[in-house]
């Protein structure tokens, strides 16, 4: 199973990686429990920075598409197929759209929403 990234694409490289690995799972090209290449190997083969691949792996791990088993390496998650269909980005967009619609309905202006949104984002996590 080969993955290909386009270095001139407008889509960030880590997103291309995430999408391609998810597609590979959805199309059954990789099965649950299959080992994945190490960050170093993949970064080397794709001539990318290790941090880019690490970021993609972190996002995939967050989505439970892959799992890291310490020194044994990284594997496809047993529930990867089901978890691949969950698009967190689409979910966030939907939630924000609904929230913003509620604010607008209450008469809050767009600039007030932006300021409040930035304030909340800038607050330390858990604070």
């Amino acid at each position, binding site marked *: *199973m*080969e*993955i*290909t*990234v*386009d*270095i*001139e694409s407008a889509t960030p490289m880590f997103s291309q990686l995430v999408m391609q*690995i998810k597609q*590979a799972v959805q199309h059954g*090209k*990789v099965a649950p429990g*299959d*080992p*994945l*290449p*190490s960050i*170093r*190997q*993949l970064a*080397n*083969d*794709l*001539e*990318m920075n290790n941090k880019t691949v690490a970021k993609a792996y972190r996002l995939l791990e967050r989505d439970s598409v892959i799992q890291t088993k310490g020194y044994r*390496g990284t594997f496809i998650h047993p529930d990867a197929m089901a978890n691949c269909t969950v698009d967190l980005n689409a979910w966030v967009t939907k939630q924000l759209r609904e929230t913003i619609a509620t604010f607008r309905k209450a008469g809050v202006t767009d600039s007030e929403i932006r300021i409040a949104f930035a304030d909340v984002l800038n607050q330390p996590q858990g604070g």
Partner: protein
Amino acid sequence: MTNLSIFTLVFMTQIFLLSVFYPGKLLQRMRTIQKKYPESTHPKLYPKSTNYYQKMSSFYGIINGLIFILGWVIVYYVHEGSLVSEKGINQMLPWVYFMIQMIPTWLLEIFGFRLSKLMKQEDTRKQKSATLAPRRLTEYVSPQLLSAVIITYFVFVVIAFYIEGCKFELDGKAFQMSVILLLCYAFFFGMMSWLIYGKKPDPYQSKTDRIKTITLVIKTYCYTMMACAFFMVFALAVSIHGLKSMMPVAMSLFLQFIVVISMGYMLHNNRLEDINFDVYRADSETS
């Protein structure tokens, strides 16, 4: 035949093998590539002008020529007695000369790295591909060969302690040589790991060729590790039984053997006819 005569004969073969025979083969290989796959048809193979390669080939030849002369100077001084102490010829002499003989090869490696870097810089392809599966050492060498390498180490340890009278002493030769051999093994395994996971590949080289080259190099590492273990058993036996005068000859023979099983093996098995040079053509898109 005296020890000095035997050493001279063996040392002369070392001079010939490492400064004439194999460099000659390498130069011939470089010339054949330039002739059969010239810049006009295979531009991707030449990130620098052909003139630059010819200069490098000449430089490589000249350095080897100088080292060849140095070898004869050493032979002269050994015969004259300047390099012979009361204990005989220094056992490290063939080793030191071997390290000097390897300088052109290392320079060639550095040159190769530079070219590979230039090739990557000139690579205009927008898409990069990778296999979504981890590479394993056993994909390159058989588990049997790897087991043989590891078993050889333990056999060395057992024999070394047996030769030393089954005494375990931290300042004993058996223990020290076991540690040295372990470090040597660690170095080679580190190199294998770098070749498999870390070495930046030639951007155009076909996957089959890449796997084949790495396989050959790793095999030579395995044979070298085993040869080191056997030589160290021999060296330990020689030092315990007071036959140190044999060491310079044994050392030179061992180094020659190492070159035959590494450089010789690579040149013999990685033949130019089997390498896919079409990937370096101007219109080639394969990676």
